[in-house]
């Protein structure tokens, strides 16, 4: 199958997947105890007041009707309005997407070259001191959860040493890049470990393969063999892991956003779920589902290029 037809088929399938995700999210939010009216009415609410709010919000209509209306709106590009504030959902998405995108893009720009360099370095010095140090540090770092690392970094660099701002409260992310340093370190730390381990393992396999030995016998230079012959073979598994990481980053890493007070998609999602603000939750679900479908499609097309044989069979 040609990559083009493969992509078209996957996109068609992706549309179905997005619809399925949206449906499941709708059902799950319905299953949560309480609704937006209860959340709005505050503590110790009067049942009659809740009923009033429900009617004004249209929550008294059957769920199927509300869902159908929302899906029809979506087809026209209308994400609906927030139940709580009445602002269009698109505005929420627009506000949250900025910080999340900035963090995700910067994290990936750091992550990919760094992990490839680390993995290749460790593979070329397999068993040597460099490999051991890289292995020890990456395995160690990988076992620290984000929130723990984040809190420790804030305590040391933000509070004790005062080198960096501890949180991003009220800051313009691009105007004050210093606020981005700690969140980025936390975001990059764990994926860096897993991806560099995959690159290292793939590189060791590739360097020992028959085709690399053959290329050496043909007289091709060492650098070329390492980077033009072995490395592309080593990257195929890493690409899948990068895709998973990209998904994770674009989903707004809730823990990191919460600790550093970054107003990204993750923060908006948490608030919307707490307020049972269904249209916002669903809008976010659409964004996350589309991101996942697209990112994985790109990863598979890259894998097609990096391992033409395996995909041709699959």
């Amino acid at each position, binding site marked *: 199958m040609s990559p083009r037809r493969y992509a078209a088929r996957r996109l068609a399938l992706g549309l179905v997947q997005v619809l399925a995700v949206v449906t499941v999210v709708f059902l799950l939010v319905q299953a949560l105890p309480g609704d937006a009216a209860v959340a709005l009415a505050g503590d110790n609410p009067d049942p009659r007041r809740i009923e009033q709010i429900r009617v004004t919000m249209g929550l008294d209509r059957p769920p199927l009707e509300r869902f159908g209306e929302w899906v029809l709106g979506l087809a026209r590009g209308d994400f609906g309005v927030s139940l709580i504030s009445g602002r269009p959902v698109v505005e929420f998405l627009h506000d949250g997407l900025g910080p999340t995108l900035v963090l995700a893009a910067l994290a990936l720009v750091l992550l990919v070259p760094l992990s490839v360099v680390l993995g290749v370095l460790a593979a070329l010095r397999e068993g040597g001191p460099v490999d051991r140090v890289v292995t020890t540090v990456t395995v160690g770092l990988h076992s620290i959860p984000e929130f723990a690392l984040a809190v420790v970094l804030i305590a040391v660099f933000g509070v004790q040493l005062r080198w960096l701002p501890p949180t991003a409260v009220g800051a313009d992310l691009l105007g004050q890049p210093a606020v981005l340093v700690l969140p980025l370190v936390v975001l990059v730390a764990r994926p860096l470990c897993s991806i560099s381990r995959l690159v290292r393992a793939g590189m060791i396999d590739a360097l020992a*393969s*028959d*085709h*690399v*030995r*053959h*290329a050496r*016998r*043909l*007289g*091709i230079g060492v650098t*070329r063999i390492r980077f*033009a*012959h072995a490395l*592309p*073979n080593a990257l195929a598994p890493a690409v899948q892991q990068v895709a998973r990481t990209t998904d994770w980053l674009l989903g707004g890493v809730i823990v990191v956003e919460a600790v550093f007070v970054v107003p990204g998609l993750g923060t908006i999602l948490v608030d919307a779920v707490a307020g049972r603000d269904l249209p916002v939750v669903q809008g976010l679900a659409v964004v996350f589902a589309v991101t996942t479908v697209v990112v994985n499609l790109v990863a598979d097309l890259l894998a097609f*290029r*990096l*391992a*033409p*044989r395996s995909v*041709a069979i699959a």
Partner: protein
Amino acid sequence: MTPVVHVEGLRAVTGSRTLVDGVSFALAAGQVVALVGASGSGKTTTGLALLGEHAPGVSVSGRVTVTGRIGFVPQQPSAALNPVRRLGGVFREIAALHPGDDDVLIATALRRARVPVELLRRYPHELSGGQQQRVVLAQALVGDPAVLVADEPTTGQDPITRAEVVDELASVVAQGVALVLLTHDLDVVRAVADEVVVLRSGRVVEAGPTADVLDRPRTAYTAALVAAQPRVTVPAERPAAAPRLETRSVTARHRATTVLHDVDVRVGAGECLAVVGRSGSGKTTLARCVAGLHAGFAGEVLLDGRPLPRSLRRRSRAELAAVQYVFQDARASFDAYRTVLDQVSRTAVRLGGAADPRAEALARLAAVGLDEATVTRRPAGLSGGELQRAALVRALLARPDVLVCDEITSGLDTLTQASLLDQLAALTCTVVLISHDLAVVARLADRVAVLHRGRVVEHGPAGEVLGSPTHPVTVGLLGRSMEGTEERKA
């Protein structure tokens, strides 16, 4: 003529073991010398020494003089080509290493190896086995080498591809390149080599012109090598037995491609059915359908008249034991981290119902020449031939009614192959033998089915099919494997 390759007193030692001991030979332009011998005879070590290479921990001494550049044609071109790179890019990298215009160098090499230019846009997996072989030959020819070293260029190839490879090599030699051929395939040696050096445990046991050495061997070892080379001899008829295994209109698919069309074959108790055909003809898929490894087929597989469930998972333990499979790649069919004995005796535990599985496994392994010290190692400590024998014992411990053997001799040297064939010939169960080597088939088969593009084109008693073949594919497979038995081409 002055020799382009001169090897004198070559020795290679690793630890206390001597791999090559005093090998000497010389070779002039346009000549072919074949280094022959069983696995472990020192062929590859000698070939690598010509390239100035040696395995880690091996020290090489002696004199190796090569005038001009030396090129290498690797064994298994499918593994030697980088799966991620288009051929053209790699060719340009190679050409850049040599003086002269890149495009001219590439075009010349492609022409000499008869590789069409269009192939440069492709990836290795988009080529046939024969094309891959020609591509690695063309890579070696970039920059006009004086000498080529070809390592087992025909091992594992079907007879028609094998004949193509022989033609390619002969045509390159005719262009004035000297060729050092490392092989255990004496048919190929007869077809192209001027001189033969017979190696055993690193020593030259015999050397001289091809015809002299192979037709009038002076040593017992050479005589054994020549005798072990499989020959097609038309087998005598045996009375047909009641069918034990039968397939009824088996049609199998791999995704959208139909690889088997309405295959009906039949084999009696104690008989051997050979399924032959070129690579990609559907032989292995048929074997996998029988064994329950390829559930996606229509039609029926009957054992003693009762249909077998299509999938392995739905077969009872007795049905699992009844059909056993020996795979082409013995090494891949063992877990690398457990001892061979463990894995072999496991069948006896699960399927054979033996009282003392370990003792039974040891006894059966000893009967095929594998002692306890050998089989208590992990697979990495055994040779390919030893592992294949262990795999055979593993299957037989289940006391199968039907044993499926998928190309189990194709990677082995001729002496190892001959001993494995003796063991197969002595079996009393029904054997389904998948092979493209008609010499092996003729040795064992009572019945032969010829597959071509997923269809049975001939099916009958072995004597009939091999003695008077009617389909062009059978004729092609037969003709090619007998070609080597004729006198060397002028």
